[in-house]
């Protein structure tokens, strides 16, 4: 078994997230006037991932969050280190499955809300009765 020697950033599959904003190359012979201003491309990992140890990318299956702009097949960036609050979009463990819902914390109890009238809300007596897997911070919506 191999020994992992050092920490590693989120792996290849995920770092497809990089966008080219480099200056257009100029014809050979003349140095680009932009070259002194080029500090590297935008790295989406740097902007979208606050903590590499706690951030995972998951894929949505189903339509119950359409109202929140989260569609079937979208990818979500989920940060496990965040404290879920009233209004957070969370991944909760329900019946052994990872499920995406809007968290509502009210004086009378906790509600896992769907963002689609076709799907029912789920009421939970208290936050302690609920296993929250992580908090969604971004949706990579396919347009």
């Amino acid at each position: 078994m191999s020994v992992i020697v050092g920490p590693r950033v989120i792996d290849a599959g995920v770092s497809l997230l990089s966008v080219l904003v480099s200056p257009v190359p100029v014809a050979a012979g003349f140095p680009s006037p932009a070259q002194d201003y080029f500090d590297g491309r935008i790295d989406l990992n740097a902007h979208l991932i606050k903590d590499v140890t706690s951030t995972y990318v998951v894929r949505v299956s189903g339509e119950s969050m359409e109202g929140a702009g989260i569609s079937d097949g979208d990818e979500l960036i989920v940060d496990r280190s965040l404290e879920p609050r009233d209004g957070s979009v969370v991944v909760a463990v329900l019946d052994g499955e990872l499920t995406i819902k809007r968290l509502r914390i009210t004086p009378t109890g906790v509600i896992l809300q769907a963002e689609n009238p076709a799907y029912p809300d789920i009421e939970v007596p208290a936050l302690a009765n609920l296993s929250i897997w992580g908090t969604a911070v971004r949706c990579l919506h396919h347009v």
Partner: protein
Amino acid sequence: MPQIAHVDVNCFYASAERAFNPSLEGKPVIVLSNNDGCAVTRSPEAKALGIGMGDPWFKLAPRAKEWGLIALSSNYELYGDISSRVMELLGRYSAWLEVYSIDEAFLGVKGSPAELLAAGRSMKAAVRRNVGVPVCVGIAPTKTLAKLANKWAKNNKAFAGVCHWDSVPASEREALLGRLSVEEVWGIAGRLTRRLNVMGIFTIADLVRADPVAIRDKFNVVMMRTVLELQGTPCIPMEEERIGRDQLIFSRSFAKPITTAAGIRQVMSVYGQQASARLAKHGLQAKVLTAFAGTSHFNPKDTSYPSVCVPLPMPTADPVILTKAGHALLPRIVEGVRYARAGIMVTDLRPSGNQAPLSLFENPHEERHIGTLLEDVTRRYGRGSIGLGHGGIRGGPDWTMKRDMLSPRYTTHWDELPLVKAA
């Protein structure tokens, strides 16, 4: 005086699987070794069924259904990523981190007993919360005691997963040491245990009372260190990251035996490229390559263990050269013999680019960056999408590892992300 924290993940492979598949929670889960051979990780529920470490899967399979036992192939991509997350997180607690194995690490920590205990609890909570796997923590003046404290934390619920050795009343510690066999000590196993027993040393308490010098004379300096460490004197230093690692081995048992030199050739091609990729990743070059193959130990007739050591023309990480060097084994392969494993080992490793070779000796492939190219393509299109000659066949030749019960590679492959239900 700094203390040492030993942190390890409970049932690591099973816990990594559960982090993404909560339906496995509370169920007996085992993870199988390479080629789905035998159980290498067992959840507590699987242990409770009487499943032993290393029990072969073919013996368990017929009863799996009746037990509700879930068996999974080793998902090394997942475990490697989870491991690196755990280690990175632990690194935030101490600049002095030694990654001891895929699922355990030693950390140098300082503070009052209350602060140390708080730090241990904070590590445990952070790994659970951020990464999603449970760990236990043992904190003590030496590595050997930290390991022991960790084991205690795992087995005694009163600790809630974190044991600071010095905070436990001396009477309780002595009672524990008097109860545990010497076998429970880090580094002491079967044969050593018997030799210690002959000397009247049965429990850890017996060993703590032993004279370190007498122990050195009877055994060796390693055993003496163990005794001193148990007495509270640190003797096993923290190792820095092993940059100067001196060898890399790529070897595996085959899912089914290979009986031809052509088959072994294919194996060498794949390992040559894996070695190249690993060397490049660590910024290393090798000077010597050893290629070997062997028949099964369970097949006493027709034994054959060919091996060849090839000095490389210059320090290199070039896949073409490494693969060709591996082919030196082929003339020694006996056709028709059933080879059960083969591999290559690269040794005499040095940082690449340390000394620039004369251009005369510069390697033509390295110049054309073949290694980097292969790596780029692999990163983009997945393992096995490109390769040299016999090594680059998608779907894999039939000797590659059998992983029939593999879970998705949730965190390293875009096509295999965990699914969350919106229903």
